[in-house]
């Protein structure tokens, strides 16, 4: 039980995928101007990331390892991820136009979100330590960490709309610096899971 808690705390806070591991930054910077959009993107990514962790764990465990093909990991993972994303997009578009309105434009971007490939690769690197459940849990934790910082970041950026930021820093420059200071704050979590 406490092991799962540690995995979660580790993935969400201590080794936050965005602020500490520096993965998935493009959507983090790109889709955080509006809170609503950030929540949508976060949710969509969380969904795909969790699913991708599970799927690539299965591929790794039941195909690549038995057939001695670890060198195919990147290739097979990314293809599966792209497939999941594409499928999710089409499915949501059809079944829930409302949700699609919210997530629609972000879904294709998820394929090129480093975090979505990075987490399965990290899981594959630590193959020995993970069971399917733990892999899913780690994937979910990373996704939750992604969503969390994305939403918090969007909150700050919305507030910054009204701030008297110097002209040359308006927009992405100050956003980048804010992300840096957030990352600095997240260093405070260092050591919480040993």
């Amino acid at each position: 039980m406490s092991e799962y808690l540690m995995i979660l705390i580790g993935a969400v806070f201590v080794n936050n995928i965005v602020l500490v591991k520096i993965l998935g930054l493009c959507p983090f910077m790109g889709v955080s101007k509006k809170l609503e959009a950030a929540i949508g993107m976060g949710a969509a990514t969380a969904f795909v990331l969790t699913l991708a962790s599970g799927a690539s764990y299965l591929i790794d465990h039941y195909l690549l390892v038995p057939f001695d093909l670890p060198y195919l990991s990147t290739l097979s993972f990314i293809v599966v991820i792209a497939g999941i994303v594409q499928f999710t997009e089409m499915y949501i578009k059809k079944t829930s136009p409302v949700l699609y309105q919210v997530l629609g434009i972000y879904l294709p971007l998820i394929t090129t979100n480093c975090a979505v490939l990075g987490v399965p690769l990290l899981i594959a690197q630590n193959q020995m330590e993970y069971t399917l459940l733990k892999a899913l849990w780690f994937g979910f934790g990373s996704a939750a960490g992604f969503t969390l910082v994305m939403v918090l970041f969007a909150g700050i950026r919305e507030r910054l709309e009204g701030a008297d930021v110097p002209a040359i820093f308006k927009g992405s420059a100050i956003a980048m610096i804010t992300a840096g200071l957030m990352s600095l704050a997240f260093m405070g979590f260092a050591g919480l899971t040993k």
Partner: protein
Amino acid sequence: MSMLHKFHGGVHPPTHKEQSTRTAIATLPIPAKLVIPFHQHVGNIAKPLVQVGDYVLKGQLIGMPEDGISSAIHASTSGTISEIGMQVVAHASGLPDLCATLLPDGKDEWIPKTGMDFRSAAAADVRQVLRLAGVVGLGGAVFPSDLKLRAGKHKVKTLVLNGAECEPYITCDDMLMRERADEIIKGAEIMRWALEAEQVLVGIEDNKPQAIAAMEQAALASTDDIKVVAVPTLYPGGGAKQLIRVLTGIEVAAGVRSTEKGVQCFNVATAQAIYRAVQFGEPLVSRIVTITGNVREPQNLEVLIGTTVQDVVDYAGSLPDTDGYIMGGPMMGLPLPGATVSIVKAANCIIASSPKIFPAPPPAMPCIRCTRCAEVCPAELQPQDLYWFAKSKEFGKAQEFSLFDCIECGACSYVCPSHIPLVQYYRFAKSEIWSRESEKNSADAARDRFEFREYRIEREKQEKAEKLAAKEKAAAEAKLAAAKLAEAQAATSVTPPPMTEAQAKIQAAIEQAKLQAAAVKPKNTEQLTPQQLAEIAEIEARRAHIHELASTDTEPPNGHDKNQ
């Protein structure tokens, strides 16, 4: 009496009321000139009934209430109308509005007045009398009182009389209550009767003991259930919603009418005006105005509507270092564009300002989010957030944070350590939002009309094509008999001769028209002649007809029927 309730926040600015309560209410002599605006109430401007040169009697109707929310305007004394035109009025914009200038003849001769016994009349008749008497709220909102006296769907249980007068400097209600308490109480009886309310509560801030005593005395004489209640002195305790909250515990949200919660609120001066209008048939031609601040003798004056501020100030004795005039109190008042503007029904107080009384505020600093403003906001808003959004023109956000619940009381600006003109930002944001709203509405209307037009053109084309087809069919039938002739017929039907005829006429008219164009100045198309109006109506009717057709036979374009 049940316990008093509290409202959130509030401030205690120094009151400065003692200055102007030292003498009894005096009457300002009839001035040499009155400038009477036709728009002194909320709602539609009154329609002028007089023309330049007309002689009018005191109390004569000179502005007729329009339909809907509107009120009447009267001559404040007898004399001659010397001008009707645009003049600068007491408005924040400093822009001119339609006014009648009246040169008094000094006789101050009333039109024949007929009072009525309201108890034997119908409530609707009493309201009509008030409407034509031009009685509007004198507490600041200048809303037509007859409309506020309509009982409506909800039963009004409590009538609240607002004698709080919470703004610093202002004492006109205080003095009125001291001197004419019985008239106020009688007015309250009329209002209670019209609204069929059960009880009347008069709320007076406890810094006016004399007024409370006088009102209690007068209330004793009434057969109605009228209670005078001393409420704590706390700005803005006189705001209708705050007073209702204090007296009854009921909170009336923004955008909700208090009658829906069974309460109606009137200013005490309004009550007195209602009494005089009903009992004596006297329209609202004067009011009590506090003149205070940087004047020699601060006091209260009974002033004819239309008197210029200069006349009032001169009477009280103007002082040299005066640098401006405020209409209303220092918290919510309006800086006047000059002393030439006239006293209107809303003018409860004129403060002559000087740098000593109202020193220039230090330059505004950024908001430090200290939340003092939130602590004093009677509407329980977060003024610092509203400011943040208004400042950066994020109007949607401002609205989300309940911008329109702000009553512009100014308490937040008063306490702000950064001296930010907060209320000003809210006013700015509100008026931007309103104008956007109306732009959006006209854009929507334009879209409807555009789409409808497309539809109409499409339809006309179709009809033409059908006709053409019919003709061609006929032609084809005739072809057997005379083929060549039929062809010619078909050809002419493609280009209808009237068009070519019209074009020819146009050519002919051009020369003459161009000559005219050079000579004539354009005039305002807004003021349409009856003939043009009829024409528009006719066109509209035609459109309506096509609309009907449209909605029956084909799928109508989006929302076009909103147009009608």
